[in-house]
């Protein structure tokens, strides 16, 4: 119990004093995760629509695979990305290992299946509703996908936020490919792991509470913005 109180007071102290190191790693956490969510959404949302609208040979298998990949172990993803980006690996020349870019790549791999899978579910339901109308109106496949993505945007926002939730709290993969280097690749989660390892539970907990608060604030902000913008239309 004592440790928890110490963690809470540490969190308050860090925030109130606008600790420079804290602000740096919070911003880097956001930079990495928001980039990863944007890229994964750009891939995952159309992919979900594609699978929902098109009939192709391995459709069922693709959906099953996508669902299975939602549970991709981050440590393994980190390991594979590490091998690919390491100096002796195929993409070694790019020199990306131990950079925020490597962390973004790993997170994109982890959350794209999650976003695509939730998006597919939402779009499939709407497609069942719109099917006859869109066929009757002579729409092209492209137009159908665009219409379905736009009209299910609220559910798709939830898909992206789920991806955000998974990415912001992820530590295994980004620890491996980022290396938790101070001022370069240290983010909230890797800092927590480090402080816990050092036995500084107060600081670790403080950072943990800030991480949770950050996730809540981002979610609330996005929901508030989207609702005030569109009113009851959503």
């Amino acid at each position, binding site marked *: 119990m004592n440790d928890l109180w110490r963690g809470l007071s540490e969190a308050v102290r860090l925030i109130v004093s606008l600790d420079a190191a804290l602000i740096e790693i919070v911003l880097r956490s956001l930079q990495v995760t928001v980039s990863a969510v944007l890229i994964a959404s750009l891939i995952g949302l159309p992919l979900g629509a594609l699978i929902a609208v098109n009939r192709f040979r391995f459709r069922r298998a693709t959906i099953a695979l996508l669902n299975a990949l939602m549970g991709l172990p981050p440590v393994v993803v980190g390991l594979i990305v590490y091998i690919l980006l390491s100096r002796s690996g195929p993409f070694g020349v790019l020199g990306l290992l131990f950079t925020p870019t490597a962390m973004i790549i790993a997170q994109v791999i982890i959350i794209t299946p999650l976003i695509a899978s939730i998006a597919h579910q939402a779009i499939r339901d709407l497609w069942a509703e719109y099917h*006859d109308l869109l066929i*009757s109106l*002579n*729409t092209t496949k492209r137009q159908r996908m665009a219409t379905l993505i736009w009209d299910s945007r609220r559910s798709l926002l939830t898909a992206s936020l789920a991806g955000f939730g998974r990415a912001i709290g992820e530590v295994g993969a980004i620890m491996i490919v980022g290396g938790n280097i101070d001022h370069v690749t240290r983010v909230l989660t890797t800092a927590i792991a480090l402080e816990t390892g050092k036995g500084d539970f107060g600081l670790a907990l403080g950072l943990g509470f800030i991480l949770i608060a950050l996730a809540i604030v981002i979610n609330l902000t996005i929901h508030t913005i989207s609702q005030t913008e569109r009113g009851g239309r959503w």
Partner: protein
Amino acid sequence: MVSDLLPVTAKGAVVRKGGKTILGPIDLAISGKGTTIVMGPNGSGKTTLLRLLHGLDRARDGSVSWNGAREDAHAAQAFIFQTPKMMRRSVLDNIAYPLRVRGASRKQARIKAEDWATRIGLGDALNRDAQALSGGERQKLALARALVTEPAILFLDEPTTNLDGGSTREIEDILSQALDTGTRLIMATHDIGQARRLADEVIFIHRGTMSAHQRATAFFEAPASQSAAAYLRGDIVE
């Protein structure tokens, strides 16, 4: 424009679903102007016949052909479903959607959509969520969304079944305006009164087969099949 597409001909057309024959074989030719009413009891195959002609259902055996290419014919048609499908958009954007799909600019589409919304009496609901409309308003929106593309052929699947008298009258008024501008109507209904009001010719469907196809006056005086006669008398036809 109508004469370009018609006649539409079905030759031995059969529709099966889940291993059961739900329509056919149907041999049929629809041509000329005005309104064709498709009548018959529930589950007789009225909806399936309309969907077959429009291309939403495919003939398992036999064929349906329009005078001209299938794509051109389909593009000049519109379909009103029994339960109107409301897109998750505003009333205005619902009506504008078919125009947007056909490549109109957002601005053009909205101007035309607003014009149609006003004509059908939804002029002060432009920015409302379409999914919050009442049953009558939804059906009117569906009509506007169908007519905004000025279709040569309009299919209607029991458009007034769930509506009260006032709304039904409004819908029928809009339909007669569409007729005046040359739109060909093919409409399913099991409302005998409505059929009498609107029909130029009648197709009677019973248990998946067509048992009568006559001019309206002839049909209501002397229907060509016993089941149609029983239906018009008000007997229960199953």
